């Protein structure tokens, strides 16, 4: 049913995205799909990497490591954005088409009041793409 699963990854907060990584791996095995790990980074030095290139290397290494764990084919895509926080939603929406994913598995926080001003990324992405979206709450599996 799904051929390519896109998984947005925040290398700085891996613990928060563990449930969605798990879900993506299981789905990929079930549907024999490829998993594409997508990371968005600023062009300025950040806590994960000094340069976008270093970030891309780390993301690729991360993807390979995950691939060894679940056994499905993997790929990675690093997107450089001058303003990764504000542009994240649009960057991800564009990335879905770029990598040709038909399913996106991404973490999201439970609904809260601040969403009225700053909506959740998962919710925004889901309303702007044709791909299927699987939003994973942080409490999943606990």
């Amino acid at each position, binding site marked *: 049913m799904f051929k390519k699963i896109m998984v947005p990854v925040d290398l700085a907060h891996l613990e928060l995205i563990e449930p969605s990584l798990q879900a993506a791996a299981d789905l990929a095995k079930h549907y024999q799909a490829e998993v594409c790990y997508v990371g968005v980074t600023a*062009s300025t030095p950040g806590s994960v990497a000094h*340069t976008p*290139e*270093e970030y891309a*290397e780390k993301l690729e290494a991360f993807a390979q490591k995950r691939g060894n764990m679940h056994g499905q084919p993997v790929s990675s895509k690093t997107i*450089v954005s001058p303003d990764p*926080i*504000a542009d994240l939603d649009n960057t991800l929406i564009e990335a879905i088409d770029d990598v040709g994913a038909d399913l996106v598995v991404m973490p999201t926080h439970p609904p809260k009041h*601040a969403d009225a001003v700053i909506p959740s990324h998962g919710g925004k992405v889901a309303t702007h793409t044709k791909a299927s979206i699987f939003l994973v709450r942080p409490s999943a599996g606990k």
Partner: protein
Amino acid sequence: MANDPNDKSAKEPNTGSEGIPAPEGPANLIDTDYVIGQDNITASPLGINVDLHGKVFTISSLVILFFVIITLALQDYVTPIFDAIFSFLTGNMSWFFLLAANIFVILAIGLIFTPLGKVRIGGAHAKPEFSYTGWFAMLFAAGMGIGLMFYGVSEPLTHFGTAMGGTATENGMRTDWAPLGAAAGDQAAAIDLGMAATIFHWGLHPWGIYAVVALALALFSFNKGLPLTMRSIFYPILGERVWGWPGHLIDILAVFATLFGLATSLGMGASQAAAGLGYLFGIPNNNVTMVLLIMGISLVALMSILAGVDKGVQRLSQLNMALAFLLLGFVIMVGPTLAIATGFFNNLASYLVNLPALSMPFGREDANFSQGWTAFYWAWWISWSPFVGMFIARVSRGRTVREFLIAVMLVPSTVSVLWMTAFGGTAIDQVISDGFTGVQDAALELQLFVMLGQLPLTQITSFVGIVLVMVFFITSSDSGSLVIDSITAGGKVDAPKPQRVFWALIEGAIAIALLLGGGLAALQTAVITTGLPFTVVLLAACYAIVKGLMSEPRSG
């Protein structure tokens, strides 16, 4: 995107930085164990995520709060102190400001012509992230914006008036405010001198100051891999100590300078917009209007912040450039076209002719002018430079140093000449040809509108003028929040959005508080006071730029 091993221009990346690939194409990373954000505090109070540099954020926000409260509560006591500091600094330190600004200009122009100009920001193969128009628009909107609207008419007119007035001496001291030796009674010479003096304050020097800060920040962040904060510039001098207290102090100073510089500009913008609305629509020009204006405009700025750099600041800046050029074009077409056209070259020439004398740091006879105008301007530009510089740095990745310097120095300076010639020239022409002195007699913030009032379609042009001021306000507030947030988050540009919102609100609040407290003088003193230590920071930046560029591979 990995390094091309066959790259002809490749120089071996720093061997000390094993495991870190160079930025796009060859560059020379600095090897440090510092992890960006390692001193940060992350928390989620009230469900809002924050990610801040504990010391820089706490100290700078507390001191600013303290400053605002003291200024408002003890106004009668602190005003004389501010005045004394102000006149001491402009009086005794003006040679230092003037000398330093000259060094910045010479360095920035010099680098254009050296082989170091070939270094590309972000690594030899980095690609620019913004189009030329978007880039220019953001440079200009961030760098001057409101100031051009505020002083475009009034400054040329003022210098023209004082120059016509000639010199006056009392006990051997010049008491007039004329630049250089004045031009008593000689109208043509007074125009030349007045325009030269104005362009001097809005030309190469301010942009040279910005260029130095922006280049240093961009170089140490994009090519050397250090966080995008002021402290990184000091790495060649302080080494690993920049991550400790010396670095904290530099960053805190940068936050002050940015906030005070911004608040001054926002206060000016609010008073001009309120004056314009009163002039055009008869809306009472009082504190209520101004407070409502600041609140309303801050709200729009918040939306722009939430939209991000690409869709927020960039689009607004482009809109503003379009509007500004429309207004400029209109004034040129409808105003004294021929006088402006010839005036442009005339003024450019007289600027260049008078440049050495105007920028002379020592032995000045025109103390009032060189201290009260020039030194104040230089301190103002300098204290504003972390803000503008950081913003320019952030949007300039992928440009070569030469391209960068030409874009930051020469293009905006030329536009400044044209702007001042058109707006100031028209106002002067109204005085000379029509004997209309309404502009001279009007309040500072009204002068633009009174000048436009003498031209046709005044309703429309004045309205465009008001919109321009407001949008410049928004872009300043937006980019300012971005910059302060990044400094107080230890150089992170991907800190949570609510922090930017916080700073935008604080900027609006400071502008309101100080306007209500009548504290524009306090603000100006704050600007000058932070400007002085920052001049030292900038001189260090000059050294760091040259040292940093020397170690970079040059692209073709």
